[in-house]
């Protein structure tokens, strides 16, 4: 494989700015790697494609189903959980579907469907989109094709802007919502019960010509207390709350904890 | 005199800080053909542009039918037609080029086709009708450009060297044709030409522009016979222009001393009747006869024994350069050349009438043009 370390990163991680901080710190710690680190942000589906072709060395991704398949097929190895936040249902301030008073996501979605209030779906096979589909299934509704169900096919932030402009509901990860909140006329009504889990997967060096050593080093760094501490603190200063919850304790040299499922 | 069809008053055109045209006053009567002549860069094309209302002079105004041109220029422009020095044809067929002015005026298709055809035939380019204008030869393009203007049958026709690229038989035929057509239709014409013969042939009056100013305007014979100043004389091809001094004026004839010779001139000289002058003589006014000839009873008052310096064929004629005490040029026919069997060194007598001599006061200043 090449000497570069190509890191495939989900766009939401890049968009928040967390990626830059992590990479900067990694470069500081490993000056030998500094010149070769190439973090590349892309849609989750695109990341999986790249991994399958051995075009990236390591992934930071939140796409549970595809992650499992990647590992099952032997293209990915060494999955480690990195951090998480939550999905949330957001909608217009007057809450025409009265989602506020529901307890679960599925229930809220049922109300939206019942009242036929506009719902913006990202429709891009991203983690958020996949989770949204799962929630619709839970609610027992197939919204695709309904006039109130619109697929924006855009990034997370863009979808929020669309929803805000149209006075629509949408599903969003809590981190992105925090970042965009002040531009939006949207309020958070229901939080998802399941976390939005980001994990690290290395591409299998036995199957693809990848930069194993560097990828391992980066994975180690991310799960190290130093890496975890950055995650824990990220966003505090700017938004008053952290955007992600690190998977590990974020202190000392303990290995990252395996989260309860 | 009827009211002038077109005119200019106090026109000044400047380019890059240079005055390239300055005309106090110039009028063209209805139906008149004004020939504009002058050396290269004199401002002739500029004058045409000003008259065509295509160039706004920095000072002065253009008159049309006696009134200053103001407001929308389109109605005026539609009463004129212009042939530019370069034939700027549109990237279309010959036919649609020639018809373009008509279709801009909304002339119906059928009439347009008819008129276009007539003028194409008149210019001998009917066979080129469907050809793309950009494939034409130089002369063919100029014919199209001419036809495009004439098909409009305008009140005023402005022509800038319209015949320069035409072959000689065509040019002659066209000039004949045009002369007749213009007289019939009463079109007012201003045309620029380098060809003095053309100007003489077509022009009712001739205007001489030199250095951006009109130096002289008048009937061709007058302008050619009595150039207003040295530059005009030189330009008009008065090839013998020698300095002299008026020594006496007898019976309306001035006696001028030129080098060692005496020349009698009937030229009406304004200003001081004695002093330094330029003696102008047109080569075709000089007649040559054998040196031994007895003086015949002719009206030629000046008879100067001369030596032939050089014989040059010039078209159908022969130019003989003589030394008559001063340089003198004569234009004679081939027959005369044969009969006199002239060659360099031959001795001849050069004679010319006193009326053929034109005197210009020395250091003459350009005059204001007289309309």
């Amino acid at each position: 494989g090449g000497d570069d370390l190509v890191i495939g990163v989900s766009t939401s991680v890049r968009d928040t700015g967390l990626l830059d901080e992590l990479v900067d710190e990694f470069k500081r710690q490993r000056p030998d790697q500094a010149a070769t680190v190439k973090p590349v942000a892309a849609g989750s589906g695109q990341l999986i494609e790249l991994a399958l072709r051995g075009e990236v060395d390591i992934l930071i991704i939140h796409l549970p189903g595809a992650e499992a398949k990647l590992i099952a097929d032997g293209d990915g190895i060494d999955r480690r959980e990195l951090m998480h936040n939550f999905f949330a249902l957001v909608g217009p301030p007057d809450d025409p579907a009265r989602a506020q008073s529901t307890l679960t996501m599925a229930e809220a979605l049922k109300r939206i469907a019942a009242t036929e209030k506009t719902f913006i779906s990202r429709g891009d096979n991203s983690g958020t989109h996949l989770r949204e589909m799962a929630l619709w299934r839970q609610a027992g509704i197939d919204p695709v094709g309904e006039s109130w169900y619109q697929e924006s096919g855009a990034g997370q932030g863009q979808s929020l802007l669309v929803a805000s402009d149209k006075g629509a509901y949408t599903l969003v990860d809590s981190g992105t919502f925090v970042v965009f909140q002040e531009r939006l006329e949207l309020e958070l009504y229901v939080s998802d019960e399941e976390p939005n889990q980001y994990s690290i997967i290395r591409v299998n060096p036995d199957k693809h010509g990848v930069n194993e050593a560097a990828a391992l080093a980066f994975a180690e760094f991310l799960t190290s207390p130093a890496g975890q501490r950055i995650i824990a603190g990220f966003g505090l200063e700017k938004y008053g709350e952290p955007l992600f919850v690190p998977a590990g304790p974020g202190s000392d040299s303990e290995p990252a904890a395996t989260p309860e499922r | 005199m009827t009211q002038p069809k077109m005119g200019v008053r106090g026109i000044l055109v400047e380019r890059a800080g240079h005055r390239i045209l300055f005309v106090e006053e110039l009028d063209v009567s209805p139906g008149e053909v004004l020939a504009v002549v002058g050396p290269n860069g004199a401002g002739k094309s500029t004058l045409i542009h000003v008259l065509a209302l295509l160039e706004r002079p920095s000072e002065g105004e253009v008159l049309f039918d006696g009134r200053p041109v103001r407001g929308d220029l389109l109605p005026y422009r539609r009463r004129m037609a212009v042939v530019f020095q370069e034939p700027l044809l549109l990237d279309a067929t010959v036919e649609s080029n020639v018809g373009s002015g008509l279709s801009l005026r909304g002339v119906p298709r059928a009439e347009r086709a008819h008129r276009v055809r007539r003028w194409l035939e008149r210019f001998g380019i009917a066979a080129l009708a469907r050809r793309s204008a950009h494939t034409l030869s130089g002369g063919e393009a100029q014919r199209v450009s001419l036809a495009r203007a004439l098909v409009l049958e305008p009140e005023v026709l402005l022509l800038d060297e319209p015949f320069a690229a035409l072959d000689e038989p065509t040019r002659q035929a066209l000039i004949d044709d045009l002369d007749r057509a213009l007289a019939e239709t009463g079109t007012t014409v201003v045309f620029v030409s380098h060809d003095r013969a053309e100007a003489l042939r077509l022009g009712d009056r001739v205007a001489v522009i030199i250095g951006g100013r009109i130096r002289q305007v008048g009937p061709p014979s007058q302008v050619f016979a009595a150039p207003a100043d040295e530059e005009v004389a030189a330009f008009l091809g008065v090839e013998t222009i020698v300095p002299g001094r008026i020594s006496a004026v007898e019976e309306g004839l001035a006696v001028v001393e030129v080098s060692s010779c005496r020349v009698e001139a009937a030229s009406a000289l304004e200003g001081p009747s004695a002093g330094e002058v330029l003696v102008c003589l047109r080569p075709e006014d000089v007649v040559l006869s054998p040196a031994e000839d007895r003086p015949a009873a002719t009206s030629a008052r000046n008879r100067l024994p001369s030596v032939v310096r050089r014989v040059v064929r010039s078209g159908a004629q022969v130019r003989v350069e003589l030394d008559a005490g001063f340089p003198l040029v004569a234009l004679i026919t081939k027959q005369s050349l044969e009969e006199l069997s002239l060659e360099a060194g031959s001795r001849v007598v050069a004679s010319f009438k006193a009326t053929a001599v034109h005197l210009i006061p020395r250091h003459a200043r350009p005059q204001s043009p007289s309309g």
Partner: protein
Amino acid sequence: MELIWDGIREAFRLIFTGNAEVYEIAFLSLAVSGAATGIALIIGLSIASFLAFRAPPGRTLALSLLNSGMALPPVVVGLVVAVMLWRTGPLGQLHLLYTPAAIVIAQAVIATPVVTALSVVALQTLHPKLRLQVLALGASRWQAAWLLFREARLPLIAAAMAGFGAAISEVGASMMVGGNIKGSTRTLTTSTVLEVSRGNLEAAMALAFILLVLVYAVMLTLTIVQQRRRAS
């Protein structure tokens, strides 16, 4: 590499199986970019005529601004147009955001400087006396413009093609002001981007191929019109 071939194969499948969604998207792309180019041409030719024929003072300045306009990133145009069209923006009352009309506006903003800047030059390369000749033939102001446009059709059609190319190939602005909403504002480029981010690279290739085939049909027509009777 085989990705590209797979994409082309997929494109043919989509075209020949009569995939309604693809047809719809393709039609929207052409309609929107065509409209934007039309607007750009109207504005562009007016400004260009003024700048080229009147040669007003400050023409070089105006031209340099127009030329800079050719480098407007679509995403910036999208952002600015979105700001205008936001509900709280100055044109919010029109409720145009996330409609095809918004994309037309944004693409027109992108195409206009391209069309204008190239049209100015197109008209400037005409023989300077040709305008006088046309006026001398008795053309009104509009007739003169029309005749001169015809004379400059070679570079003017090139300008139109460049404008159309800029409009139909951009994605940032369509995304921003259109929102890539399925069945409404999804164009060939925005759905290509979507397919890329979904990881459906063959599908992305297929859409791109369909786009290029459509574009080629348009450009071939225009090129033939442009080059007609220029043969000799």
